[in-house]
């Protein structure tokens, strides 16, 4: 019932983007997200779209999948667009009907905001499509490593994150199973008013929480039984090294930033 989620899903493939160091991808994603908000001109947007198109082309991720990631938040994009178009005031009126007035500035702003959202979604889903959860948490752990000196529990946080990510599909499956079991007992989740719908969720939520706690307890026990302790002196299964392709990726990103700053 709820298995068709695409946001945050990893699609393994053998491509330039997949093979990039996860740290490179994380840093570039972070930089791009910041710079999206600094674009204010059409050439800037065009260069950004070209950059993303290049990334998609070199990632072997099908264009349909990228569209799918946008589709999952189209409602947010739509609302942003509507709010901007109707509530922003400017000088030049494009369209007027009773109390509705659409200004040129409003229309431009609305397109810009919607475009930004689409670009942000594409950037972040390109990261998750091409990088496994394991790689992302590893990258976070290494990049935040210096914070250890400030006694910030970097390793523990990374571990928590990777466990949480690891259990998302498991919990989804579990939810699906419990939903089916309760449906078979006559429960329904999508009928009635708000209150009865919330009440209808209880037969799913309670068993789900109980099994999640049980899983957590089992996992903790299993880790302890194998003498797990993280942090200091713990070696890594995969060591990451920057390669030449990471240099190319960084160079292209730098070029993109320069274009954005000039086109401003």
């Amino acid at each position, binding site marked *: 019932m709820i298995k*068709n989620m695409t946001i945050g899903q990893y699609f393994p493939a053998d491509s330039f983007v997949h093979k990039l160091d996860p740290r490179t991808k994380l840093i570039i994603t972070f930089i791009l997200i910041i710079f999206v908000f600094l674009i204010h001109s059409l050439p800037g947007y065009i260069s950004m779209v070209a950059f993303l198109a290049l990334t998609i082309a070199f990632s072997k991720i099908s264009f349909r999948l990228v569209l799918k990631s946008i589709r999952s938040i189209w409602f947010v994009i739509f609302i942003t667009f509507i709010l901007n178009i109707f509530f922003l005031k400017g000088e030049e009126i494009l369209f007027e009907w009773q109390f509705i007035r659409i200004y040129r500035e409003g229309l431009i702003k609305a397109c810009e905001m919607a475009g930004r959202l689409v670009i942000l979604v594409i950037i972040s889903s390109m990261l998750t499509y091409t990088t496994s959860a394991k790689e992302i948490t590893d990258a976070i752990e290494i990049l935040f490593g210096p914070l250890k000196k400030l006694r910030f529990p970097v390793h523990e946080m990374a571990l928590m994150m990777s466990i949480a990510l690891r259990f998302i599909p498991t919990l989804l499956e579990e939810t699906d199973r*419990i939903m089916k*079991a*309760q*449906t*078979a*007992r006559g429960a329904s989740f999508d009928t009635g008013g708000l209150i009865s719908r919330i009440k209808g969720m209880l*037969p799913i939520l309670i*068993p789900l929480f*109980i099994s999640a706690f049980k899983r957590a307890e089992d996992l903790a026990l299993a880790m302890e039984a194998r003498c797990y302790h993280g942090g200091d002196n713990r070696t890594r299964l995969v060591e990451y090294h920057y390669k030449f392709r990471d240099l190319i990726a960084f160079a292209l990103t730098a070029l993109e930033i320069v274009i954005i700053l000039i086109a401003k």
Partner: protein
Amino acid sequence: MSIKVDNVSFTYMKKTPFQVNALKNISFEIKDGDFVGIVGHTGSGKSTLIQIISGLLKEYEGNVVIDGIDYNDKKADRTRLRRLVGVVFQYPEYQLFEETVEKDIAFGPKKLGLDEKEAEERVKVAMDLVGLDYDMYRDVSPFQLSGGQKRKVAIAGVLAMEPQILILDEPIAGLDPQGRENFLELIKSLNECGMTILMVSHNMDNLVEYAKRIIVLKDGELFMDGTPAEVFADKEKVAEASLNLPEVASFCDRLREKGFDVPDSIIRYEQLKDYIISTVGGSYDD
């Protein structure tokens, strides 16, 4: 309540790289009051099949007609389907959620629209069937019970809906031998009262003892269909479906290797006992 499965196919994750054809053109019919075992290797489509029959998976191809009605039809009364078909999933104890055992068992009956009094009556009957004392356990939280007792509560919750068709997915996994025996005896007596039973199991020995008919699935296709004796007589085909022979059958094979002429029809413990006594001599008590 006959069940007619006609040319049913099902595909998971359609149009993605993860597409799996779980069922391919399955057709069979189950008579009223039958006891059918569904077996197959992991991933052969057993769970998908029972979910389709119980109306929990909807986007399949083909028809499933229960008692003359296709419940995938939009006009069909799905509450009636819930009343007809009870499903006990694998590890059903994970579906418990109420504060007390009584409330949890009464959840299903109440959803069917019964009032307090009728529901209470059904809870009593169901608890009696699974062997839980009503007065002792009615106000206990189901989460304080042991694993075996939890399972009893969950099964009582399904039985309290008084289904005419009971579908069970690996109901005895994780139970101790005594619990298994008690549970299977309960299912057998329900079947004798006229309930149609569909049971998915990996345990061939239990199926041989209890089922009247066995359906074997392999890679989403209907591979074998017949009485336990018929199915397990064809040893090559059983091996091809990656299934084990029941203990008795493999014991008979051993006897044959030693030169005894054991008939193919022997697949139950009782039959084997009778055969050994008749060939070797002696009596039951020896």
